[in-house]
């Protein structure tokens, strides 16, 4: 058994070019920019953090470019505990697409999934979407809100740490999306959740 108490799946969505991969890389590797070639073959990133003296393992999934032509597989959303919807504060169209993304999220993600709206690229000087507009949108749709800069490492750490803390809180009060824990994961590992101390997953190989 690996040394962590909680395992959470976090998925990122949003238009191409809003900086999803940069956010993940900044958080997991402290790198910016991530370098184009490196994306090939990278599926999800893992980082173990500590919240209230408990180890929390975050599995952070990126879209693998399938968002480019709005072709994300439904299975991408399965079993997600948190969902980060990202737009670029200097690019109006990426904000205008948010309702489309929300529709897709409604359709495929668990309705209890923790949702966070992130306005990225606050280092840019050509801002098009004022903070309060993003905030309003998030509030209307029951989402958390944060503005970040992957480039300047602003609020990136905070984003993921708050997600980890919130999910842990939910896990403790049992409000976490309940995914079936008796499923079989055939690679001998399990991507399903939660409090590993009482997880009923079959660990078969």
């Amino acid at each position: 058994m690996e040394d962590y108490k909680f395992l959470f799946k976090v998925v990122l969505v949003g238009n191409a070019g809003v900086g999803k991969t940069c956010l993940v890389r900044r958080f997991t590797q402290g790198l910016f920019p991530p370098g184009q070639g490196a994306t090939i073959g990278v599926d999800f990133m893992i980082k173990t953090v500590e919240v209230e003296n408990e180890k929390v393992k975050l599995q952070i999934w990126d879209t693998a470019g399938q968002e480019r032509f709005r072709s994300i597989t439904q299975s991408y959303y399965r079993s997600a505990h948190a969902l980060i919807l990202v737009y670029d504060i200097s690019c109006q169209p990426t904000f205008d697409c948010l309702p489309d993304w929300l529709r897709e999220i409604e359709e495929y993600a668990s309705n209890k999934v923790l949702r966070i709206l992130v306005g990225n690229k606050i280092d840019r000087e050509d801002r098009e979407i004022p903070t309060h507009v993003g905030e309003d949108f998030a509030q209307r749709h029951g989402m958390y809100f944060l503005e970040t800069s992957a480039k300047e490492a602003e609020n990136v750490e905070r984003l993921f740490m708050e997600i980890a803390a919130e999910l842990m809180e939910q896990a403790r009060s049992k409000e976490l999306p309940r995914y079936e824990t008796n499923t079989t994961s055939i690679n001998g590992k399990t991507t399903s959740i939660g409090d590993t101390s009482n997880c009923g997953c079959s660990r078969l190989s």
Partner: protein
Amino acid sequence: MEDYLPNEYDVVVVGTGMTESIVAAAASRIGKKVLHLDSDEYYGGLWATFNFDGLQKWIEDLKVSKTSTKDVSEVDLESEETFLKTSNEYSTVENIEETWYISNDADLPVVSSKDTQTDSTGDGSGSGDEKSDDDKVEKKENVKQWSIDRIRKEYRKFNIDLAPKLLFARGELVELLISSNIARYAEFRAVSRVATFMDGKLTQVPCSRADVFANKTVSVVEKRMLMQLLTSCMEQGADSPEFDGFRDKTFLEYLNTKNLTPIVQHYVVQAIAMATEKTSCRDGVNRTKHFLNSLGRYGNTPFLWPMYGSGELPQCFCRLCAVFGGVYCLKRQLDGVVIHKNKCKAIISGKQKISLEHLVLGQGHLPPEVVTSEGEQRISRGIFITDRSIMQGEKENLTLLYYPPEQPDQEPVTLIELGPSTNACPQGLFMVHMTCKRTTNAKEDLAYVVNKFLKAEPLDPLAIRSSIHSHTQTVSPDKRHIQEGDQDNRGESTEESPKPQVLWSLYLNLPASDIKLNESTPSNLHLCSGPDLELDFDFAVNQAKSIFESMYPDKDFLPRAPDPEEIVLEGEEAPGPKFEGDTEAEEKQDVEKAEKED
């Protein structure tokens, strides 16, 4: 507006069915530049799984022709190039018949005081604990009785398969998922029982050695007999001298020489080998072997079911393809292919001409010019939402039943029953899938099995009410309705083993999977079949393998994809990623930072 795609690829794959998706993943995995298109806005084609709403849209869309209207004259061709328009005629779904057996909310009877009274008298006269429990549940659920509106409202909780398929625990697909590391994208649930119909009722087939020995319907002698037979199939296989005299004979003819008792023979033929009278000895032995081989790996039976439905699996391969750089574009129509000197040179999609080395086409995107036979293995499907299991047990089960034909003109039917824990349907409901080879149409082909195991008559509360009063034709035959004055059909839930009531059904015919291309087909055009009649995905996996081999004979087929932990990233100074284990210092820093920020 149409998305502009880059113009050159090594491999263009059209259609996101199982075979197409595996080929796409395999090509991308070895570094080929892959473009994967689908004219639909969802993944999977005829292999798709839909929620209830999505299925309704799919049915609606079938009425609209999607065939390209593009004319050759509009295509910009160079000399010696010919244009072949593609057609969706080989993926035509026929005989769609959707039926509701329940009412809309508005048509449900208002819960009057009289009804409530009836309920309470029912409580009083309750003969046992079980009964009163039922009544309590009913009262609570009274307003929440299943109606058309309620099913539509809970559409997200349904995952309905067009082509439901199981995985043998040691079948081609499980091995491939593990060896390629694609298994991490999917989750499974073990089929919890294999059922068979024997002596007029459904029984659970003993699958494991322990099951066999715990089984009370089989004598000790029979148990020994069964184990012996299974051992010879398992250890020696069809090439063993044991089966020498039966090369041209059927499996049944072989079994008849073994002096098996009827029960043992029944288990072997109907549940383990899932054979008919026509099954050859070789096939029977191989099927038995396959079944036995897969036992004991996961769960009680040899089978796994993909969580959220079979339609998840093509998507897992698509994800891998994308992770390795494959470009995905749904809702993108293929208009036709450009042939140059008997090679596919490009495809035409919208305004774009996209060049390629290999073209992989799902059978719904073939130019009619290359098709020589439409195939014969056509499929009849029935999908049913029911209110209880065909074989009620203490816990929720995932059941597989093979039902052999009763008459010579019928085909054997495979029945898979899924419960809420697979995410096929909400709590309180079951989803039954039936599949057989088409002879007439889906409804007629499956009727004999539907009538055997399900109650597919309208459940109209008003009709039942009136029938009770007039003492004429009663939809529900139990006498309790009258005895207890219970004017509610739900009274029948206390019956011994009532058939599941069908709330909704859908019949459809899928096209044949054994479509053939003619010999003049360009060698770089590869056909991917639609769903086949077999229980599992092996056909698709093997077809994908052979397509990949013909494209890239010297390359590995889906070598293991690295785990994120194993990838050393560009520009990273540490020799390896530092996610696991020895990261305490790092993490503490993180926490401190976070605390400061807070």
